[in-house]
């Protein structure tokens, strides 16, 4: 039995190898030309007026200089945003992004090419001068909106607590926010950080509510994908990293540079432990970024499938529409859940890493004695 399966395996491998050899030296006239990749690297041939799912999906996920709401009669309807650019030759220029006419016109020596502002000369050819783009893009505007809502909300609730005191029953919007704040304080703060939790509660609460509000706003159709932007999550991760570094003590660094292991494994472990200090915030960054981008991409792809199918035939598109709609609603509800979960995970893991940083000597015997 063993010999028979071994023989079959060898025959399968040989046939695979030989067939690759046949195709590799095949007839040169039959291989078609490789399609030219467009600038986004999307390797599909482009016809005039053709529908490109790749660019539409990318436009939904990336940053833009206007809020593109929808297309009406082939003409895009969008809310323009201010453009603030600085070059060494022309200085600071401020104007609305509607001047670019969605990438068709150059204005004051600048042109919008694939979402990026480049400096052009009179003929419309790209020049070498470096453009510093400080524009209020849609990510920035949406971030400011989330910030204003967060600050106004929290200040109102704090004012209510100051007026009523903590002993009275909560009223109005306090009812919705107080259980969440208590949840973060108990499950994330107290259970991870022990009795030093009060020092870190402001940061943990801020990061939780900011990520939550940004995630939830990103789910509204037509809005920007703030948390799915790697720059945004990198900044959040760096701030968490600084918070972790500020809570480290001698014991923590002692464990990294002098781990209690036998001598021959120590050099490897020191490198691994030192890299471990950086990989933990890096995982926080990538986790939040990837979850949000993947969620938005799935929703957009599922809706694009209707258009892709209708390119084959109108009947296929109409028939596929209910299926796609059902899947899209399902994934949308999951994305709302993921918005909450990702905010909670970011906060919880920051608290866990902070607690690992100021751990101190192992008090396991004392803890068991108390039970």
């Amino acid at each position, binding site marked *: 039995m063993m010999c028979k399966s071994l023989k079959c395996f060898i025959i399968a491998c040989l046939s695979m190898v030989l067939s*690759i050899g046949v195709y*590799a*030296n*095949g007839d*040169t006239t039959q*291989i078609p030309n*490789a399609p030219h*990749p467009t600038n*986004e*690297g999307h*390797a599909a041939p482009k016809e005039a007026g053709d529908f490109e799912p790749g660019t539409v999906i990318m436009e939904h996920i990336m940053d833009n200089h206007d809020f593109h709401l929808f297309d009406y009669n082939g003409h895009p309807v969008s809310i323009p945003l201010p453009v603030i650019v600085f070059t060494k030759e022309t200085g600071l220029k401020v104007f609305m992004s509607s001047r670019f006419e969605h990438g068709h016109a150059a204005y004051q020596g600048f042109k919008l090419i694939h979402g990026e502002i480049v400096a052009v000369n009179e003929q419309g050819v790209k020049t070498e001068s470096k453009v510093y783009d400080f524009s209020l893009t849609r990510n920035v505007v949406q971030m400011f909106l989330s910030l204003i809502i967060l600050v106004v909300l929290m200040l109102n609730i704090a004012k209510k607590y100051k007026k009523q005191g903590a002993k009275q029953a909560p009223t109005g919007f306090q009812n919705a926010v107080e259980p969440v704040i208590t949840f973060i304080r108990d*499950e994330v703060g107290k259970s991870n950080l022990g009795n030093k939790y009060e020092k870190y509660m402001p940061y943990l609460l801020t990061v939780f509510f900011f990520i939550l509000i940004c995630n939830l706003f990103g789910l509204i159709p037509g809005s920007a994908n703030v948390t799915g932007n790697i720059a945004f999550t990198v900044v959040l991760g760096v701030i968490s990293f600084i918070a972790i570094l500020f809570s480290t003590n001698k014991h923590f660094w002692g464990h990294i540079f002098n781990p209690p292991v036998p001598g021959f494994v120590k050099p490897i472990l020191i490198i691994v432990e030192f890299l471990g200090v950086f990989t933990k915030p890096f*995982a926080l960054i*990538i*986790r939040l*970024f*990837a*979850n949000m*981008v*993947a969620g938005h991409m799935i929703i957009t792809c599922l809706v694009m499938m209707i258009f892709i199918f209708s390119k084959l035939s109108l009947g296929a598109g109409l028939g596929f529409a209910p299926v796609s709609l059902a899947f899209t609603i399902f994934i949308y509800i999951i994305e709302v859940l993921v918005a909450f*979960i*990702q905010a909670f*995970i970011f906060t*919880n893991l920051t608290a866990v890493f902070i607690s690992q940083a100021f751990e101190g000597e192992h008090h396991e015997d004392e803890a068991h004695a108390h039970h």
Partner: protein
Amino acid sequence: MSLLNILLDGSISNMGAAIGAGLAAIGAGIGIGQIGKGAVESIARQPEAANDIRSNMILTAAFVEGVALFAVIASVLAIFIK
């Protein structure tokens, strides 16, 4: 047309990206399935600990999903960076 030309025209990277994303989905499915199995069995043993077990399950599932999404990001990079 040689094997080298086939490999260099960029279509193999798309295939690799698609296969990588599929393998990531398999990995996430198996991982989160094991987490769910352990959590449901523990709740069956001790129903009054259900809340604790549920929050631990969600936390661990987010870890596993984060790792699967690392693989998805690597696949997306394989497609869009030639």
